[in-house]
């Protein structure tokens, strides 16, 4: 460790009286803006519908797609969802939809299909669209992509604390394990790579039945999912992840009836903000717009 480096410890959180794990995401005062970080607030839309699911394994696709349209219209400040897509992409774009295939909680196929459909409605050729996860480095569309759409469910994760939008891009590098150090803190650097940087037009964090606690080698029990019925959308992946993380923390505290920190601490979210300047993680730099079902919203 260098002499100049400021080491964050548990002690810092004790001093400020803030929750140990979520520190930076709830306004931990020590870390401030890094070079290249935006000074503007990031808009995040959280939309919920209690009818989208009755719980894990059940999904009403048409409700989910309607939620997506509403959220995007609000995110871009229009009443016309079709106009959003025409603003977001050009007919000449080559678009990779970075999905997530994790068995117990994959990106809903309905959502993938809807994204493809909206892109085509905006004039993008079907041959210029691909949905992929683990094969993105071999996928011919992704190789030539001029635009990316990032979509995945949120879940807890043994090593990074949370499976997030930021983490979803780990498949874009040839040696993902090289980013596993210090709880995947450096995931933000992937977003700075030339074949990634500046291409992401939209981030969608699926919060329909998030996994808020993991058990066992496969880190899954449906007992630890709940029908939150939400989508979080933003052009800022850090702000979307930070918002989702706050909800996950609130759910863990409520479920376990005590402070149950996300563990390990999801360092990569605040590092993406403070070290790599990818976006905003602090609530005071996030404009959160809430739509729809408000009961047990947890934020």
């Amino acid at each position, binding site marked *: 460790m260098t002499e100049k480096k400021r080491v964050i410890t548990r002690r810092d959180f004790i001093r400020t009286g803030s929750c140990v794990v979520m520190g930076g995401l709830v306004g931990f005062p020590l870390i401030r803006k890094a070079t290249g970080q935006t000074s503007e607030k990031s808009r995040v839309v959280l939309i919920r519908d209690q009818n989208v699911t009755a719980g894990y394994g059940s999904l009403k696709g048409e409700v989910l797609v309607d939620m997506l349209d509403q959220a995007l219209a609000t995110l871009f400040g229009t009443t016309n969802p079709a106009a959003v897509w025409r603003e977001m992409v050009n007919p000449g774009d080559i678009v990779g939809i970075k999905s997530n295939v994790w068995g117990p909680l994959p990106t809903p196929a309905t959502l993938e299909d809807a994204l493809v459909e909206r892109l085509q409605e905006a004039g993008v050729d079907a041959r210029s669209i691909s949905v992929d996860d683990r094969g993105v480095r071999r996928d011919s569309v992704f190789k030539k992509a001029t635009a990316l759409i990032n979509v995945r469910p949120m879940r807890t994760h043994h090593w990074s604390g949370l499976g997030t939008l930021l983490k979803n891009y780990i498949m874009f590098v040839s040696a993902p394990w090289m980013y596993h150090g210090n709880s995947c803190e450096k995931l933000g650097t992937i977003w700075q790579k030339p074949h990634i940087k500046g291409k992401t037009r939209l981030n969608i964090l699926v919060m329909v039945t998030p996994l808020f606690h993991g058990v066992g080698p496969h880190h899954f029990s449906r007992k630890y999912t709940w029908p939150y019925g939400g989508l979080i959308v933003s052009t800022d992946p850090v702000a979307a992840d930070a918002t989702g993380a706050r909800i996950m923390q609130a759910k863990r505290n409520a479920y376990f009836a005590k402070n149950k920190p996300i563990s*390990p601490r999801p360092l990569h979210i605040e590092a993406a903000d403070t070290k790599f300047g990818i976006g905003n993680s602090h609530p005071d730099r996030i404009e959160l717009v809430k739509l729809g079902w408000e009961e047990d919203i947890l934020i």
Partner: protein
Amino acid sequence: MTQNSYAISLEGLQQRLPKHVNVWNAEPPDRIFDRKTIFSYIDGGAEVYKAYNMQRCLSRRYTAPSRPVIILDIFDMGSSQDAFGVFTHDTDGEVVDVGQNACFRQGWLSFWKSRFFVSVYVEEETEAGEKAVKELARQVATTIPEKGAKPQILSRLPIKGLQTASIRYLHHPIVLNYHYYLSDENILNISAETHVALAAYKLGNQEARLLLVYYPDPEKATQSKVSFLKHYMPDADSTGAALLEDGKWVAVKIKKRLLAIVLEADSRELADKLLQSVQ
């Protein structure tokens, strides 16, 4: 970590595994993963097993018509110390008498025996599934002939007040942060060469945690103590103790290659007593 040599190999164990459990039948083929391919099998959790020096993992599925799948995973951890360690990564749940230690919760039973950590998981929780999980685990445990030794560092933990269910053994800083967030950086220089034990204590109505780190040499232990004092308790008194802002005490002491740290002690007396009791 020292690799213990035990007679039974993963392949040898594979041959002895049950082909049926209640109405469930083994569904071939078994799959064996190594330290590289394990990532394709358990996305996210693999780093934990690698942090405990996992060598290989054997996975077998048991299926039955209209019944949830039961997944058996046997991890060859290379040493019984690491098999015990990875078992302590998650010990929530009901204690059951399988292997050398076992826990059952939410359709998942885990146990360790010899150098193997075993996980038996039913995808849907049903009464029949739970019975089958427990039965399968018992049968697998009997196929592992030897028992293994626990990590030696556990013998340095004071007995009085020790909450045995809270014991964690590890040698990776992220695993420590998983159980007890200490710092964003590895200020204690924890590595594959160090042995770490973390445990909770309760004496009367007072509580504390004790962290023991055993280093490969005394110099590393001294450096780590200096680092801990610098980053975590720059306000420590001459005895190596400090009162934190939340009213709890932290105290540190070094004994040759062993660094002992009391965390979150309810009183100075308790912190001192624990440090004095470290073997």
